[in-house]
């Protein structure tokens, strides 16, 4: 047991060590040497994680220590590794490793690979730390580390204005959620006296605190998860984050960052369950899934379609958690990580070879990149949930669980979203790989072997995973009852088949034209509505600008008019922003400053007199 503890710490540490040495070695020797360091680090990290997974017995690995103590106040830290964390770590390190290998081909023209691999290893390391720590404070530290790395990686091509802005947006939006999460942690710590996951869950199971308090804490923490996992309404950053390199998107979407939110909810599942927060999780998930699935239908960029699909699948996981089936959610997380990594990396190969991100400007690529096309198809099939592939098993389980849960709204939204996968998936595939080759397609050639090898590994995994479903579920959750409804399965497959038919007719046979639909104002409106993600981004901007900014400005304005300036020149400049007025106190006149000083002293004295 003692050995496993040290190996766990070593696993977290090796990534940070590797990231720094990759940077230094790349900086002071040949730049691409950092790649070998990164590969070595990733491999060792993966092997160590596998070792932990194989040696993990019935009991979780637990180690506790205090970061520091001060009287009765102490900040505990420590690790807690059970099957859930180990599976998350396997996903992060395994897919991270494949992604590192793939990047050798994708980033071949890059000038600073040492920076790239430094940030990348740091990212993976933060994620591994995040799933191994045993309490909320430790999680928060790594949580911020993940956010920082995503900021750096999304803005990796910082000289591109759009990339820089996307990075900033991702940072600000996830930070916004984190503020609430931090508040939740503080509330939990102060009022419940603990921040350890196991103790919190035990308290919840024992019913040691009121449901309302639990609901408050759960919701505050859930807002953090919403920001990190890009759910409604904090998802617009995920779309803009496509400005980063595609390998980074693969890492963010499949292996690390967005999974963190799902992991957090799963980790605190009993707590959420006790405090009745799961219904909120379910509703947010269902709504996000619906928004994302419809949005993906309208988009034209390869990566943005994939981004919407990520959001949808994460939402499905949240729905699964929300309806109380944590096993389905985590199983789907694992499957999603595999096929989404496959899709993103394949898309990366396409984009790298054609230098074009817009799917509708490509076409007929099958002829030039047959292997990539087939691998992409495997990914699409898994994404759509077609039977022999892994996506089918978990997605069907989620639909079944939702049906069994019995809430018609959640079920309806989830069902529609789940079946729409096949529509946008095949729409994307048909548009990119079939039809007449375009200008961009004609220069393309097959991806390099070093890029194809990770793809093949992932594609094989999509087929192999279903065979081990029982073992995996047992490893994770022990005995779990899986709801099964034959009618529902048949209905799902039928609707999916019909949708496939429609997509086939529109985009492959091209017998139905969408031009007329788009020309009609209503159709155009719907398209734009979906394209812009239901205008949530615009709404957030509007709220920021008008509600927060406007109200603060108005409040300060009022104070200024009625208190500072009197009626002298108040009403004239209503439209000035808040600070523009506020700073007028700083008159620059030394006598005014002295007056404020004395007035301050007298006010304090009066306050003492009367308070």
């Amino acid at each position, binding site marked *: 047991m003692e050995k496993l503890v040290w190996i766990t710490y070593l696993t977290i540490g090796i990534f940070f060590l590797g990231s720094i040495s990759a940077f230094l070695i790349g900086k002071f020797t040949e730049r691409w040497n950092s790649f070998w360091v990164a590969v070595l680090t990733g491999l060792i990290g993966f092997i160590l994680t596998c070792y932990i997974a194989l040696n993990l017995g019935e009991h979780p690995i637990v180690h506790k220590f205090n970061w520091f103590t001060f009287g009765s106040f102490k900040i505990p830290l420590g690790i807690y590794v059970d099957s859930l964390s180990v599976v998350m770590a396997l996903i992060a390190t395994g897919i991270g490793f494949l992604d590192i290998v793939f990047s050798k081909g994708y980033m071949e023209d890059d000038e600073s690979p040492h920076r790239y691999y430094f940030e990348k290893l740091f990212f993976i390391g933060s994620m591994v730390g995040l799933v191994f720590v045993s309490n909320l404070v430790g999680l928060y530290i790594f949580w911020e580390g993940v956010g920082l790395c995503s900021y750096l990686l999304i803005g990796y091509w910082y000289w591109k204005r759009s990339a820089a802005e996307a990075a900033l947006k991702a940072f600000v939006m996830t930070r916004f959620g984190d503020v609430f999460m931090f508040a939740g942690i503080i509330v939990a710590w102060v009022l419940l006296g603990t921040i350890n996951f196991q103790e919190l869950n035990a308290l919840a199971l024992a019913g040691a605190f009121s449901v309302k308090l639990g609901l408050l804490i759960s919701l505050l923490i859930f807002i953090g998860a919403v920001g990190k996992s890009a759910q409604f309404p904090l998802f617009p950053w995920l779309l803009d984050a496509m400005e980063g390199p595609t390998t980074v998107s693969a890492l963010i979407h499949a292996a690390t960052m967005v999974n963190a939110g799902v992991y957090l909810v799963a980790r605190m599942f009993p707590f959420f369950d006790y405090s009745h927060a799961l219904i909120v999780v379910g509703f947010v998930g269902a709504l996000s899934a619906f928004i994302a699935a419809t949005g993906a239908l309208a988009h034209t960029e390869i990566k943005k379609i994939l981004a919407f699909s990520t959001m949808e699948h994460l939402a499905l996981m949240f729905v699964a958690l929300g309806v109380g089936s944590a096993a389905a959610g985590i199983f789907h997380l694992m499957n999603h990580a595999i096929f989404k990594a496959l899709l993103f990396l394949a898309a990366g190969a396409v984009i790298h070879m054609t230098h074009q991100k817009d799917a509708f400007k490509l076409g007929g690529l099958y002829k030039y990149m047959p292997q990539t096309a087939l691998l992409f198809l495997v990914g699409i099939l898994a994404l759509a949930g077609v039977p022999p592939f892994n996506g089918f098993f978990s997605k069907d389980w989620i639909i079944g669980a939702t049906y069994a849960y019995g809430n018609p709204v959640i079920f309806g939204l989830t069902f529609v979203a789940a079946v729409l996968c096949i529509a946008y998936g095949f729409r994307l595939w048909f548009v990119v790989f079939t039809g007449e080759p375009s200008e961009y397609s004609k220069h393309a050639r097959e991806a390099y072997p070093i890029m194809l090898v990770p793809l093949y590994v992932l594609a094989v995994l999509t087929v192999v995973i279903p065979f081990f479903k029982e073992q995996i579920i047992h490893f994770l959750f022990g005995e779990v009852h899986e709801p099964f409804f034959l009618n529902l399965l048949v209905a799902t497959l039928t609707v999916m088949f019909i949708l496939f038919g429609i997509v086939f007719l529109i985009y492959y046979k091209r017998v139905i034209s969408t031009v007329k639909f788009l020309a009609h104002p209503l159709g155009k409106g719907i398209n734009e509505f979906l394209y812009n993600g239901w205008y949530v981004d615009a709404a957030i901007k509007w709220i920021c600008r008008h509600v927060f900014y406007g109200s603060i400005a108005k409040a300060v304005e009022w104070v200024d008019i009625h208190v500072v300036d009197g009626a002298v020149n108040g009403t004239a400049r209503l439209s000035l922003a808040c600070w523009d007025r506020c700073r007028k106190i700083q008159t620059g006149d030394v006598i005014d400053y002295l*007056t404020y000083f*004395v*007035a301050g*002293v*007298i006010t304090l004295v009066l306050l003492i007199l009367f308070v």
Partner: protein
Amino acid sequence: MGNVYFWIIYAVVIGSAIIALEATSLLWAAVSFVVLLSEIALVYFGLNMPVLGGVQLAIYAGGVTILVLFAIMMIGESYKKPEGKAVKAIVLSLLLLILGTFFSFLSAIDTLPFKTFSTEVLGTVFVEKYSFFTIVLGFIVSALLYMANAIITKKREAK
């Protein structure tokens, strides 16, 4: 409450202070300022503190006033009637006075009999306990002299 001498001194101190601020001519203001400082020295003498009174006279009425006069000669001042701000200043200072007096009457501070300390005691305590601070004052003076030298030379070179 105090005897008649106290109130005479009170009147002179406050009166000269006000004149020092309000007098139209800067020279009269300076003279009034000297009167104020000397009156305070007189209070010290009245409290049987001849050394403190002497120091007050020497440093203030001697040193500071000469500095001020020197500055007045260099600068000069054309007196202008202050505008606007005086009301705020009067209100604030009156508030301060009223609050302070009010608090002092509310307070449980007790009037002890006045004692006289001999100059020997003063000197002994000063040397034994407080002599360290003369070194500190010396450092302040040296830093100020260096900086003043730098600034004055800079000024000369700037011309």
